[in-house]
């Protein structure tokens, strides 16, 4: 027993040894944020952050990045950034519609009738076939339509971006290690390249981007800089958008908000999942307790 434990410890230590080659080509470690929507057991999306993030996406990101799996209606569904409620004000007795969660006599509006969503969708044009003539015609988008993509196809997207394809945002937060924290870090990770690093034309240096910089690095080869290059220029500059709620549009703020929005888009059911999970675990714990008590009762007289 003792010998095998020593062997186990030896193997364990071996696993802890840092890889000697890991120094080259590493991105800087992502600072892990405490996102409200990842809190266990009752995580929720910050409504304000979602609305600000939507604005950053629409005004900045959406000119290159599609979100093909989302429809405008998704924004107005329960938990979405544009969820709206309708009801009668208790004091004035006036019928009104406002953004926010249902409660106090206010009921959630069906996403397809949500005036905020309708208004947003109508700013975009979609094409369809005219059933009378067979011609392709355009009409304003409706809540049921998918997000209008910035480019008609991938080839057009590449052509407009120096050969690089801007990734679709629908499930981006799940498709990157670190999720929202990675997105926030990357968007605020553009710094001036260190002296001795040659940045190729059309590329931009970012400390959180993975990549191998050694062939662009003229400094000490033993100390290569963190990070990598990416084709996207820094987009979030101080004050690039104006937030409706008066929040100052710092780079960190915009990065954080748009990361929240992208995380929501990747998993719009996260809030339901977490709260249902709590109920399920509570229920299962009680059942486990009861079953265990019954088990003890059954086996009481039997030595085992």
């Amino acid at each position: 027993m003792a010998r095998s434990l020593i062997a186990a410890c030896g193997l364990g230590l071996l696993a802890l040894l840092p890889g000697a080659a890991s120094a080259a080509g590493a991105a800087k470690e992502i600072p892990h944020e405490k996102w409200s929507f990842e809190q266990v057991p009752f995580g929720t999306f910050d409504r304000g952050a979602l609305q600000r993030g939507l604005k950053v996406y629409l005004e900045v990101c959406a000119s290159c990045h599609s979100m093909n799996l989302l429809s405008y209606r998704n924004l107005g569904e329960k938990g979405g950034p544009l969820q709206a409620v309708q009801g009668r004000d208790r004091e004035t007795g006036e019928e009104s519609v406002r953004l926010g969660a249902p409660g106090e006599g206010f009921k959630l509006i069906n996403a397809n009738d949500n005036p905020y969503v309708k208004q947003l969708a109508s700013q975009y044009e979609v094409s369809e076939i005219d059933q009378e003539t067979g011609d392709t015609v355009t009409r304003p988008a409706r809540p049921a339509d998918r997000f209008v993509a910035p480019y008609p196809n991938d080839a057009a997207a590449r052509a407009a971006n120096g050969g690089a394809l801007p990734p679709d945002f629908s499930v981006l937060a799940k498709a990157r290690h670190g999720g929202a924290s990675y997105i926030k870090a990357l968007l605020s990770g553009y710094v001036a390249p260190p002296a001795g690093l040659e940045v190729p034309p059309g590329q931009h240096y970012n400390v959180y981007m993975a990549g191998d910089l050694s062939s662009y690095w003229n400094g000490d080869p033993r100390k290569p800089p963190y990070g990598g290059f990416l084709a996207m220029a820094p987009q979030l500059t101080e004050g690039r958008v104006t937030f409706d709620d008066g929040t100052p549009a710092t780079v960190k703020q915009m990065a954080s908000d748009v990361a929240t929005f992208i995380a929501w888009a990747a998993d719009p059911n996260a809030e339901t999942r977490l709260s249902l999970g709590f109920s399920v675990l509570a229920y299962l714990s009680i059942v486990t307790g009861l079953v265990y008590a019954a088990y003890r009762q059954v086996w009481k007289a039997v030595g085992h």
Partner: protein
Amino acid sequence: MSGESTYTPGSAFERWLDVRLPILRLAHDSFVAYPTPRNLNYWYTFGAILSFMLVVQIVSGVVLAMHYVAHVDYAFDSVQRIERDVPYGWLIQNIHSVGASMFFVAVYVHMFRGLYYGSYKAPREVLWILGCVIYLLMVATAFMGYVLPWGQMSFWGATVITNLLGAVPLVGESIKHWLMGGYAIGNATLNRFFSLHYLLPFLIAGVSILHVWALHVSGQNNPAGIEPKSKEDTVAFTPYATMKDAVGLCLFLLMFALFVFYMPDALGHADNYIEANPLVTPPHIVPEWYLLPFYAILRAIDFDILFIDSKLGGVLAMFAAIGVLFVLPWLDTSKVRSMRYRPVARQFFILFAITCAALGWCGGQTPDRVLLQTGPYVKELIDRNGAVIATVDGQTADIATRAAQQRINALGPNVAETVRTREPYRFTVTQLSQVLTAFYFAFFLLVLPLLGLRERPTQIPDTIAKSVLRAHDGPAPAGGKALAYAPRDGAPPPEA
């Protein structure tokens, strides 16, 4: 164990049915009156947990198949549509994908339990082999299921595994193209994988019935590894085993729910949320966690053995790693079943379990990752007279080369004539995998056959009841002489 039936029909209807289709008698004899050893511990509840998981996977899978579209252009989006637009689709999808992992957690516990308590030994060889068949079917089902979401790992995992079959001499390429339905992974592959992914679980269910049948013929093994001798050694399946299984299942469900609701993606790979793209290869392709040990064994063979090239060698080693389980009943020569009474075998068992976990770790790493290095790479710059004028070093060959080039440039033209390199010794993940793979096979092919002949087991209780009462009532059980079997050289085996 299939003794006299104790079923007595209670009502007129039951008497009527009993002479026409004695299905209630079968159920009563199999799941109520069936005698189980009274000393079964919680490791023995995983059989029931596995039956439950099979049902969960089939039910959730059938519902998912109602919404899934098996086409390369729509598969990825259809899974997302299930998550977003199907009512509680996210829950069903999470249950199915996390459920696959949980199924493997349970099957591995079940297999290690069988290994530890010697459940593969006579008369349970067929029971064990049927279990191995189920495991093999599970691996095939899980592999094909992982392809269906049509993410990057789905596509490239399928590419790597089907390419392996190309290593088989003569017929390999034909088998590969036959399996893929074309010359590359494509729509034909996705469709046949979907079809087979739907079919195989029902084969698993069928073999499971044979597995339970074989179990009910030979009777359950138990932690003491001795056969029940009297009624005192057993209890009725219901309520005793049923209640214990229920407790085990509840605890298992708590863990299952924790993953489904709080960490649904923790056991998967982020790259599988990128739609499959045949033109972009992911930096490193890895299978799901439960197949990582076999992936490590596959990659450990990076050398040719005589006329077998490294690729075929890896494939053979990987299949042999599962194949060896089928002949395990005839490899272990020990007459004692339970490792509880085999002190040396128990240590090797612990080492074996650690080896499997370590192989899993290796399977998830890049094969050339360096674990230990004796020092830096050293480059000596030598002038035309043969004198060393400068030394530079770097942690990797590449860094050392760049550093040397910089120094040569700094020294000016024609000063350094030659460069001499001193390479350190490096221990990589591949080498660790080779050591672990060697131990994996040595455990089955050397340790178990030889140890059984030489090992001196500790005292084995002569009945199950006494083993239980000894554990609970202190050293002196009722009756006094519990430990009748004191093994010595030449002693007859305990079950003789």
